[in-house]
């Protein structure tokens, strides 16, 4: 009986005018979006490779004098995420690189500088198509599956037979979804072939697993929206009412709730921009350096006041022997203070972001669309998880550079009470070829799943709840 219903729903959908329209939309737009985004990705990879090569060349040419002059700024570039062909996520908004100096790191520009008008209009990628086009079509397909059949009387004709309502409902969902899923699957596979022809590393690393997760999650997402459509259809007795209700529900889930969550989170927990934080850190460094220089100048003046001429340049003079440990102590304390205060700024900033993000995520989980977008972005390495990994890698790289490069030169700036300044240097040799390379350790699939537990729970609930709702409604549905 179930198979009969599934077959009927499948055929009925295929024979309707909507099906070829949907198939054409899928088969055109999905591969096209993948091809366009792959071209953009390939361009970003070329840029990345060129930039990394230039940075490596510049790093190899670093001289100790440059470090002494404080002009060394090493850039660490983020490799574009291959799976950004599916979803752009933060790909265009993340800084393309961070700049590391002995005073800390600061973000470079994002990749949006070479974007087109799409930056304003919103990008068209696979996830966008699924969220904004396919989900709507899925709901529209479902809109008249119950109320439309009631209106036409065929529901009555079917239920005049020994047909359990749960079988009818699940058969409708199964057949209707299959009619949606097959063209979608074909479009997805076609898109994958297009990617492979474009030399996309589909089989590299865990990419294939991630692509399969994207396919599976997207399929379930479409099923979710289809079932929501069925739930709406079981709540109305006229196809036209279903249609209006579906458009309202879709707009709420797609457009209002996710943005509302973000807006509320921004209002409740405002966060400074990364540039503001960098500025704050620069100001702090300058202020601390000035204080240190003043302290050093004061101590220097106390020790060398009245000392014989040349004592400052004589390593064995008693003044110099007294000065060296005091200078080292002041500089060590200053370095520690600076490190602590900079870390505190970073930590505060991260906490602010985390608090805002947590609230936004929790609020947006009301919409399956937001949960889906977050999950897929993380699976594709363009989401929040990638951003966190990027920041983690930046902090770790700064420490490595401090150890391997910046700490090799000790600059001692002193500001004397009379207003004069003086500077002395001590340097150790640096092997520029052995400087650490900037790398971001990507999140594993397991990490991604764990980090997205809330999104996955939300998607699961959204998969089950509409079905349960539709079932409860349909069991008592008035078919007359």
């Amino acid at each position, binding site marked *: *009986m179930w198979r*009969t219903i599934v077959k*009927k729903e499948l*055929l*009925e959908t295929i*024979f*309707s005018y909507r099906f070829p329209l949907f198939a054409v939309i899928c088969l055109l737009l999905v591969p096209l979006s993948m091809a366009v985004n792959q071209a953009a990705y390939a361009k970003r990879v070329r840029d990345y490779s060129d930039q990394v090569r230039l940075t490596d060349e510049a790093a190899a040419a670093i001289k100790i004098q440059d470090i002494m002059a404080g002009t060394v700024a090493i850039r660490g570039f983020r490799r574009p995420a291959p799976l950004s062909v599916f979803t752009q996520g933060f790909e265009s908004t993340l800084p393309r690189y961070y700049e590391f100096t002995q005073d800390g790191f600061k973000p470079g520009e994002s990749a949006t500088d070479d974007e087109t008008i799409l930056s304003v209009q919103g990008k068209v990628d696979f996830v966008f198509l699924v969220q904004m086009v396919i989900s709507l079509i899925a709901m529209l397909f479902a809109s008249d599956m119950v109320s439309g059949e009631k209106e*036409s*009387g*065929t529901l*009555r*004709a*079917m*239920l*005049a*037979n*020994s*047909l*359990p309502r749960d079988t009818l409902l699940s058969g409708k969902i199964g057949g209707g979804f299959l009619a949606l899923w097959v063209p979608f699957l074909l479009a997805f596979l076609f898109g994958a072939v297009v990617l492979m022809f474009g030399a996309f590393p589909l089989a590299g690393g865990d990419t294939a697993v991630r692509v399969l997760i994207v396919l599976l999650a997207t399929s379930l997402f479409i099923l979710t929206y289809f079932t929501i459509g069925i739930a709406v259809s079981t709540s109305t007795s006229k196809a036209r009412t279903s249609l209006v209700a579906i458009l309202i529900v879709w707009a709420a889930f797609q457009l209002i709730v996710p943005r509302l969550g973000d807006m509320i989170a921004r209002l409740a927990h405002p966060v400074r921009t990364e540039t503001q934080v960098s500025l704050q850190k620069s100001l702090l460094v300058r202020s601390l350096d000035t204080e240190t220089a003043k302290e050093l100048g004061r101590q220097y003046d106390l020790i060398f006041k009245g000392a014989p001429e040349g004592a400052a340049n004589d390593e064995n003079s008693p003044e110099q022997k007294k000065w060296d440990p005091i200078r080292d102590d002041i500089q060590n304390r200053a370095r520690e203070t600076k490190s602590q205060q900079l870390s505190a700024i970073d930590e505060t900033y991260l906490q602010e972001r985390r608090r805002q993000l947590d609230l936004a995520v929790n609020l947006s989980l009301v919409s399956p669309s937001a949960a889906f977008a977050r999950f897929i972005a993380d699976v594709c390495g363009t989401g929040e998880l990638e951003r966190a990994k990027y920041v983690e890698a930046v902090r770790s790289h700064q420490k490595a550079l401090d150890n391997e490069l910046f700490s090799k030169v000790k600059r001692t700036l002193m500001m004397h009470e009379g207003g004069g300044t003086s500077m002395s240097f001590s340097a150790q040799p640096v092997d520029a070829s052995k400087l650490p390379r900037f790398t971001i350790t990507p999140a594993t699939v397991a990490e991604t799943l764990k980090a997205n537990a809330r999104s996955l729970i939300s998607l699961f609930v959204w998969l089950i709840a509409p079905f349960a709702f539709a079932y409860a409604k349909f069991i008592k549905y*008035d*078919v*007359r």
Partner: protein
Amino acid sequence: MAEHQAILKADGLSKRYEDGVLALDRLNLDVGPGEIYCLLGANGAGKTTTINLFLGFIPPTSGSCFINGIDVSKDPLEAKKYVSFVSENVMLYGNFTARQNLDFFARLGGKTALTKDDYYRAMRRVSLQEKAFDQRVKNFSKGMRQKLGIAIAIVKDAPAVLLDEPTSGLDPKAAAEFLEIMTELRSEGKAVLMSTHDIFRAKEIGDRVGIMREGRLVMERTRDELHNEDLNRLYIDYMESAGQPASA
């Protein structure tokens, strides 16, 4: 009709809707094998409510209805195995061909092993034109749809057939063909309960005719009793007078 023989039976069947309207008031009727029972009555008399109760679409407020001895309220799925239903406007899937519609509803009726020839035979039996067998139903006339609806009932081959105003809107030729098929079903031993406004055809085909008014069966006559009576006159009289429940 003796009780043990009834295929369709209503026993003190009442239905009061949520808005308080009493649509059916203690209806007692039974239809035996090889019998056509015609239910006459104005709109809102309770004819369609009776059929909806037999199909389990609505629960009775009190009383019971039985199909082949099975209480519809208690086991609607089992009861519906033994009944076919043809509505006024036979509802079919417009994008399916006649055969596809027939195949789908036959499967729902539990007939899963029928062949294309079986379907063609059923469609020939209801005089559906051969060229229409594999045509999409969306362009079918009402008469053609009605024929296909009956073909569906024939294919299901249930002992009871419920018809809700089946001749409404049919041209005289189609109506005559329809009555011919009903006669055949009767000869096959089917119990047919037909609600209709068509007094003339009810008299012509009905083994028994009941008149409903405001949810009550106010008159019931057998074919023999009607032989010398003017059913049209009777109908008008009962519609105009305050009805009394018919004696069993």
